[in-house]
């Protein structure tokens, strides 16, 4: 039991570190590139902005959930 917990915590710590690196890259690449375009949309085309905003947050949710799930599975050395 304790061995499993230690293994899970270690896997989680590694996952967190890898995830943090990915998130930092994400901040500087995607958000930096999208910032100007989203600012323009918000100011000029509100309806398009609303649709894009929802698509972005939903897309990010699915993408990051998949990334973290895969990372966790990979680090634990087994597929659920």
């Amino acid at each position, binding site marked *: 039991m304790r061995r499993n917990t230690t293994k899970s915590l270690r896997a989680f710590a590694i996952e*967190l570190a890898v*995830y943090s690196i990915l*998130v930092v890259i*994400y*901040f500087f690449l995607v*958000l930096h590139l*999208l*910032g*100007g375009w*989203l*600012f323009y949309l*918000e100011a000029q085309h*509100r*309806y398009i*902005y*609303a*649709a*894009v*905003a*929802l698509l*972005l*947050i*939903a897309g*990010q*949710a*699915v993408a*990051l*959930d998949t990334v*973290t*799930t895969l990372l*966790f599975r990979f680090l634990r050395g087994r597929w659920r």
Partner: protein
Amino acid sequence: MFFPISNADINPIYLVVVGFIIGILGGFFGVGGSFIAGPALRLMGVNWNYAVGTDLAHIVGKSIVAARQHRTLGNVDLKLGLIMALGTIAGAEAGAQLIQALKRAGNVNTVVSFVAIVVYFGIAVFMLWESGTTLWSGKKSSQHRTVKDKASKQDHSVFGPVTQMIQRLRIWPMISLPTSGIRAISLWTILLVAFIGGIFSGFLGGGAGYIRMPSMVYVLGIPTHLAVGTDLFEIVISASYGTITHAIKGNVDILIALVMHTGAVIGAQIGVVATQYFAGPKIRLAFVPLPLIGVAIVVYTLITGQKV
């Protein structure tokens, strides 16, 4: 990091940490976490309108992650969630209209605040009594093992007889919810519960999960784990609607929401996994502080005369 849409300068690490905390709460309790996100954004100087709209967008993302995770554990009743989403959206619109009517009457803050204090405090006291009594009565002998199998998710509650009485109300049309283990319940009961949750959402902003989750357990008789998962699924739909309407009105800074959400993804997964290790009454007992935080926010609003 500068966010041009809301014209705010916020440290992204702060946003990630806030998202992480809200993610844990959301995954574990099935709430949106607006009572933390709103004040947290205000604290960084984000205007109130952006705080509300951005929070809703962030809730969509966090709830998608948590609902997906709960779905893999069999904790989401899609049929119930879709029906409740209709009631919540209608309730939120009605709540917004009621606010407008109270605004015209000139006593909106007083009425809404006192209603909220009584309701939230009542929920906290009731849940403390019910979950405490249920745990004390020792009806559930297997509370210390994990709660992965379907049978062990079936809750015992000292409020059970009242819930069964509500389920026996024969108001056409009756529907069955096999996933939640309910053979027949009036559609109107479900819509009413969702509608009331929606009204509070319209009154106070956010998803009002601290009203809807207990209502699903005590009024509809949904097992706690399923209530948490289904509430999250329902929040995805109602918060998406809210995000679109707020974005059209210019109240959403999606860049802030995206950054907050990166922390929420990890937090939501931890929260969901944690539900496996707690029985229903323990989750309900741990839920008690959430409506009390709502009370504290409303009291603060009354005293200072401004929304946090």
